[in-house]
C-alpha cells in the first residue's frame, strides 16, 4: 500500500476515520519509502522506526476507542533543530554530537499531544545557517526535483532542506521547520511544497536550538495549503516557557482555507523587482497578480522603500545574536569536547573542531560587530534600519492592504556546489525576498505557483499582518487552486 504516502493530511484524517487503513499501515508505508529513498536524498539524519510504530499503534487504539485527536496517526518528520526527548537533536552540527535532550520542545510536544507520529529527525544546514542545506555536518540534502532530462543533483534550499525534500518526496506527510531569514519559505519554493513562517511569537521557541532569537520562528512545511493550516494550528500555542510567546488564542486556520478573496486588497511592492531577476520569476509574479484579479481581489501598487537594506541589516543582527547564542557550545555541558592545555585551549579547540565553516564565519562577524568600538556603527545602525523596514510594512497595512504578493525566491533550485564557494554573499542573496518578514516579525507563506523552463518548481510569497495567518491561508489557496500541485517524477 505504498500509495498511502501520497495522501494529504486532510485525506489521512478521512481515511483513518473511515478505517480505510490503519495508522500502523500508514507509518509502515512511510518507513518503507524512507528506506528506499534516504540513501539518495539524505533527508533524514535519524529514522525512529520503533518509536514511530509504537506511536502509530497507540493512535490505532485511540481511533478504535473513538478518542482520535486532530493529528491522530499522521506521520511527521521533525527538523533536527527541535529537541525531542531521548532522540538525536544535533542541529546538523558536529559540536552537538550525541546530544539527546531529556525533554521535548513545546512544538513537538504539542504535535504528540495531538496524536502525530514521529518518523525521525530531518537534515538541515548547521544551526540553520544556510540556504542550500550544504552546511550540514551530515552532508547535503538532495532535492527530489531534477531539471527535465537532467540527472544532476540540485539543492533543496535551506536551512530546512531535509524538511522540504522529505515532504516533496513523500517521506513524511508534513514536517516541522524553522525560518530565521527564509529557511521555511525558500526550501518550500525549491521543492514545490507549501511553507509558512508565522508571526514572531505565534509558535513557542522553547526547546528549539536558538540561532537568532529575535528572528527565529517555527512553522510547517506541507504538501498543500490546507495541510499547512492543519499543522500550524497544532504547532502554535501560548507558552509560558517562552517570554516572547504571544498571549493570543490560536484560531482554527483551516476555516479560512477556501474562503473567497473577493474585495481583498493585495499589495504588489515595486522594490521586489530586482535587477537580474530571471524573466520566469517576473512572469510568475504577473501570473499571480492575474489570478487574484480573476478571483475578485483588488491589486494595489505599493512601495516598501527600505527593502534593499533588509538583507545587509539581517547579516548584522543575525550573526550578532548567533554569536551570543552559540557561546553555550563550550565542550562542558553537552556534545563534543576536544582536550586542551587549559580551559581556554579546550574551549577554542572544541569550537574549532565542532563548528563548520559557515557557522564560524557568522560567529566571527557577530563577535566583530558587537565588539567595543563597532557596536554603534554596525549593530545599533542595523537595528535602526530594522525599525524603518517594519515601519514600511505598517504604513502599507495601515492604508488597507490585506496581504502583499511577491516572488518567494530570486531563482529556482540550483546545483549542489554551484553557489557561494568564492563569495558567501552570493548564497545570502537567496533570502532577499523572504528576510523582510523576519526583520519585521510578519507572517509569510510560500505557495508553489509554476515551473520554470527546466521543469523546476517556483513559488510566490504572501506577507500578512501580524497574527493574520488566516488571511495567508485564505489567499494562498487561490494560488494552489490556479496552479495545482507539483510532484517530482520519481527517480530515487
Amino acid at each position, binding site marked *: 500500500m505504498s500509495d498511502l504516502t501520497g495522501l494529504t493530511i486532510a485525506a489521512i484524517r478521512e481515511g483513518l476515520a473511515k478505517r480505510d487503513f490503519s495508522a500502523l499501515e500508514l507509518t509502515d508505508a512511510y518507513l518503507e519509502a524512507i528506506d528506499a529513498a534516504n540513501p539518495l536524498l539524505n533527508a533524514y539524519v535519524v529514522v525512529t522506526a520503533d518509536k514511530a510504530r509504537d506511536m502509530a499503534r497507540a493512535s490505532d487504539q485511540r481511533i478504535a476507542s473513538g478518542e482520535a485527536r486532530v493529528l491522530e496517526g499522521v506521520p511527521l518528520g521533525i527538523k533536527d533543530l527541535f529537541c525531542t526527548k531521548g532522540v538525536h537533536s544535533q542541529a546538523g552540527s558536529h559540536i552537538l554530537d550525541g546530544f539527546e535532550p531529556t525533554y521535548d520542545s513545546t512544538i513537538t510536544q504539542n504535535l504528540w499531544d495531538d496524536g502525530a507520529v514521529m518518523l525521525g529527525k530531518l537534515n538541515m544546514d548547521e544551526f540553520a545557517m544556510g540556504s542550500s542545506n550544504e552546511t550540514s555536518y551530515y552532508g547535503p540534502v538532495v532535492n527530489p526535483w531534477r531539471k527535465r532530462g537532467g540527472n544532476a543533483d540540485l539543492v533543496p534550499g535551506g536551512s530546512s532542506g531535509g524538511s522540504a525534500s522529505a515532504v516533496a518526496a513523500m517521506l513524511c506527510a508534513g514536517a516541522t521547520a524553522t525560518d530565521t531569514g527564509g529557511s521555511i519559505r525558500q526550501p518550500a519554493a525549491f521543492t514545490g511544497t507549501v511553507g509558512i513562517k508565522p508571526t514572531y511569537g505565534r509558535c513557542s521557541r522553547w526547546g528549539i536550538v536558538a540561532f537568532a532569537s529575535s528572528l527565529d520562528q517555527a512553522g510547517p512545511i506541507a504538501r498543500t495549503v490546507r495541510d499547512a493550516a492543519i499543522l500550524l494550528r497544532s504547532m502554535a500555542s501560548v507558552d509560558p516557557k517562552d517570554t516572547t510567546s504571544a498571549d493570543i488564542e490560536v484560531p482554527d486556520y483551516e476555516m479560512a482555507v477556501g474562503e473567497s478573496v473577493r474585495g481583498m486588497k493585495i499589495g504588489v511592492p515595486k522594490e521586489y523587482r530586482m535587477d537580474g531577476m530571471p524573466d520566469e520569476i517576473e512572469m510568475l509574479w504577473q501570473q499571480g497578480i492575474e489570478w487574484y484579479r480573476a478571483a475578485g481581489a483588488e491589486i494595489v501598487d505599493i512601495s516598501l522603500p527600505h527593502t534593499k537594506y533588509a538583507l545587509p541589516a539581517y*547579516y548584522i543582527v543575525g550573526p550578532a545574536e548567533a554569536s551570543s547564542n552559540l557561546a553555550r557550545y563550550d565542550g*562542558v555541558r553537552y556534545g563534543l569536547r576536544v582536550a586542551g592545555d587549559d*580551559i581556554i585551549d579546550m574551549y*577554542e579547540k572544541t*569550537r574549532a573542531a565542532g563548528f563548520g565553516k559557515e557557522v564560524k564565519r557568522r560567529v*566571527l562577524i557577530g563577535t566583530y560587530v558587537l565588539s567595543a568600538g563597532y557596536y554603534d556603527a*554596525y549593530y545599533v545602525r542595523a537595528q535602526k534600519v530594522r*525599525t524603518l523596514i517594519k515601519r514600511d510594512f505598517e504604513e502599507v497595512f495601515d492604508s488597507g492592504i490585506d496581504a502583499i504578493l511577491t516572488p518567494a525566491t530570486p531563482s529556482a533550485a540550483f546545483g549542489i556546489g554551484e553557489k557561494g564557494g568564492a563569495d558567501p554573499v552570493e548564497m545570502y542573496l537567496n533570502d532577499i525576498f523572504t528576510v523582510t518578514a523576519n526583520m519585521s516579525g510578519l507572517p509569510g507563506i510560500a505557495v508553489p505557483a509554476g515551473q520554470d523552463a527546466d521543469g523546476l518548481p517556483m513559488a510566490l510569497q504572501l506577507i500578512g499582518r501580524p497574527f493574520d495567518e488566516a488571511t495567508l491561508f485564505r489567499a494562498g489557496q487561490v494560488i494552489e487552486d490556479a496552479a495545482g500541485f507539483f510532484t517530482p517524477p520519481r527517480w530515487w
Partner: protein
Amino acid sequence: MSVDKDTVKHVAHLARIKVSDAEADALRGELNTILGWVEQLNEVDVDGVEPMTSVIPMAMKKRADDVTDGGKAADIVSNAPATEDHYFLVPKVVE
C-alpha cells in the same frame, strides 16, 4: 571598515575559536566581503530613528516567583562529556 589578519585572530580568540594562520587568511577575505557589502547601510538616514528592541510589541511576561521545577541534577548533566557526582568536570582553572 575592513579587518586585517591580526584582527581576525583577535576576534576569533574573543569568540573562543582556534584558527590557523591559513584559516585566518581565508576568513579575512570572507569577512571583508561581508563587511563591504553591509556598508550600504550607511546610505540610510537613521537620524532620530529608535533602534528596534522588540519586533512584535508586547510587555515582558512575568511569572509568579514560585518554585515550579527542580530536582533534575541527573537530567542536567546527562549529556555532558565529563561529570562526577552531578558536577561538570573541566580542566583545572585555579592553581
